């Protein structure tokens, strides 16, 4: 059952919660006691200067020009609650003068507003007081989740992942996973004329255990084939675990409590398979949430490697031969996924790879740490009912940026960004633009012969087989 109390659907049970203000404040008090947010809330509520520089940085405000979309104004919603209930001055002032009281309506307002922010953290770069509005959104959504104000789309995914039979957000059963992997292995033979490239399943003692966004198995076969091809030609030791093959972590978008459980499950699968490192597929938030493994698992935490870092390192070492004749001829641009680029963690690796495999690579501006969000960040891409908001308001700036480059291909190594960017292009008159992953392109240009990959000999009944078309 669901209902459209907000601009997104929530479950019926969200309407049945009684005494929400008290429960919200209890959750807030508990989070402040056990978590690390008290420090930031203390400093932010004291120093926030209301200078509005963040408004200029926000792609949503640039488009809507609505006061409600100024990051500092949104954060002030939570600051007001914090000041009133958790600072001595606020408590004293309320005793003497009355004033603000947390109400049901106020919680509804927060539930609406904090999902108009993708937590891309671009505004943080422009705040003189260092206020991280992405952190405030992150915290506010967790508190809202404790009173069940959670978009249904996020909730049902996490439920399936943590409590469902399949154990992953796309509800893919293990048989289907095996089928898909076998099918993709055959695709190498049919499309690329090579054989022997495997998707190793449940291989113990591998160096890497692979966690892509599980939706890639349904939507992005070329990305996965690119991953497998890179692992094969570089001789990488990797495996996919049947107990857990989903890197998606919507906990990052609405609840640290869920995030902790999902990250620990990844590590559990790694331990079961006696693997050494977590290899994350092309997915921004999966990577950022996996980086929190040090937080949740302390000194025992395994290393986390993003597939871009791996591919880049191997390419630099000369282990990924590129067929010069197959280099991508279309004009290509690169969209930085916020979750790996904002803090400057992964920005150069994909660019160096793209420049090596594309004949015509152009940057969009701004880029790297100052990129604009695709418009579907913070899990909002999964909320289908707000598509108009996502693509025409939140994503409009991105559409303008892509249009300005004149690129035919937009590369983004992130499952969420890819889905969102496809919709942004559709809804903003950019139908001719194609959105692809970086490994999709790598797959096309790898020189399998030079890499020594065994050629596929057709058994004879495949007379209609054609070699892959050159670009």
């Amino acid at each position: 059952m669901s209902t459209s109390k907000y601009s997104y659907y929530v479950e019926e049970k969200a309407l049945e919660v009684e005494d929400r203000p008290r429960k919200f404040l209890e959750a807030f008090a508990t989070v402040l006691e056990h978590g690390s947010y008290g420090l930031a809330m203390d400093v932010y509520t004291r120093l926030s200067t209301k200078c509005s520089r963040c408004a200029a940085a926000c792609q949503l405000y640039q488009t809507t020009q609505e006061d409600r979309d100024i990051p500092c104004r949104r954060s002030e919603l939570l600051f007001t609650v914090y000041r009133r209930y958790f600072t001595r001055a606020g408590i004293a002032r309320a005793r003497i003068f009355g004033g603000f009281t947390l109400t049901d309506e106020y919680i509804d307002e927060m539930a609406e507003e904090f999902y108009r922010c993708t937590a891309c953290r671009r505004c943080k770069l422009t705040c003189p007081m260092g206020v991280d509005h992405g952190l405030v959104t992150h915290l506010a959504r967790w508190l809202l989740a404790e009173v069940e104000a959670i978009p249904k789309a996020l909730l049902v995914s996490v439920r399936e992942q943590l409590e469902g039979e399949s154990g992953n957000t796309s509800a893919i059963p293990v048989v289907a996973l095996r089928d898909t992997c076998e099918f993709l292995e055959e695709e190498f033979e049919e499309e690329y004329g090579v054989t022997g490239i495997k998707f190793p399943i449940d291989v113990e003692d591998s160096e890497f255990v692979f966690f892509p966004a599980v939706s890639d198995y349904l939507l992005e076969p070329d990305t996965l084939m690119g991953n497998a091809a890179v692992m094969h030609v570089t001789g990488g030791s990797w495996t996919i675990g049947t107990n857990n093959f989903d890197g998606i972590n919507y906990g990052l978008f609405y609840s640290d409590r869920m995030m902790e459980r999902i990250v620990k499950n990844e590590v559990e699968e790694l331990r079961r398979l006696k693997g050494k490192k977590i290899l994350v597929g092309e997915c921004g938030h999966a990577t950022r949430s996996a980086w929190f493994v040090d937080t949740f698992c302390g000194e025992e935490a395994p290393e986390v490697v993003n597939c871009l870092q791996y591919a880049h390192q191997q390419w630099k070492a000369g282990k990924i031969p590129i067929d010069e004749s197959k280099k991508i001829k279309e004009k290509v641009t690169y969209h930085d996924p916020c979750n790996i680029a904002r803090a400057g963690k992964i920005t150069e690796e994909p660019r160096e790879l793209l420049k090596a495999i594309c004949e015509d690579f152009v940057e969009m501006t701004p880029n790297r740490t100052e990129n604009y969000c695709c418009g579907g960040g913070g899990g909002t891409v999964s909320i289908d009912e707000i598509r108009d908001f996502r693509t025409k308001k939140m994503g409009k700036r991105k559409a303008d940026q892509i249009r300005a480059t004149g690129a035919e291909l937009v590369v983004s190594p992130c499952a969420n960004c890819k889905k969102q960017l496809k919709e942004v292009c559709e809804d903003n008159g950019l139908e001719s633009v194609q959105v692809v992953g970086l490994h999709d392109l790598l797959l096309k240009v790898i020189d399998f012969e030079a890499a020594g990959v065994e050629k596929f000999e057709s058994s004879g009944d495949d007379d209609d087989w054609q070699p892959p078309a050159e670009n």
Partner: protein
Amino acid sequence: MESWLEWARGPAFIFAFSFMVIGLVRHVLLTVSQMVRTMRRAGDKNLNYGSLIVSTLKWLFPVTKMKDQLLFSLTSLVFHVAVILVPVFLAGHIALWERSLGLSWPALPNATADLLTIIAVISAVALVVERAFARASRSLSRFQDYALPLLVALPFASGFLAMHPAMNPFPYEATMLFHVMSANILFILVPLTKLSHMAMIPGVQFVSEVAWHWPPDAGSRLAVTLGKENEKI
């Protein structure tokens, strides 16, 4: 009037100035100790000090941060330079410190100090005007956001008049009393308002980073405290 001035310059100043210093030191110590405690509890104890120091320095000397809102940013930069330099490096102020505590340091030439004082007053007013005329900042602004810059301008304007009797329509002692008392009020307000950023600003980049460093089990502890550990999603 003279005895009032003596009081304002003596006990009132000592109280207000100490209130500011002690208040700011308290803020800084509490914040630092909370940062240390947070990092001690955190599962991930790594902080990228290099990049944090770089971004802190970029904000302390914000020449690279001007591009987004050029006019507002420039006004703010000029304002800050003036309000920091003049009170600390004015020859008249240094003479007072020397007389009472025997401390002394190089002073700004009086003409430069005069110019900076005028800049401080004009830019303070400009900040308020720009705040009121730009839609985004107007919609965010509280009373204190307008009041504080104007309050900061008062000791500068009155100080300038006191230094230039020829331009001053008011009696000298009244001007001086106003100058000292407006500054005293400001000192009291510093630790109580957003003006406390004067001491906290070198730490804010660290605060925002440390806040992402959580205890390993904060989530499960919350579940236990709220009685939700066995609750279905």
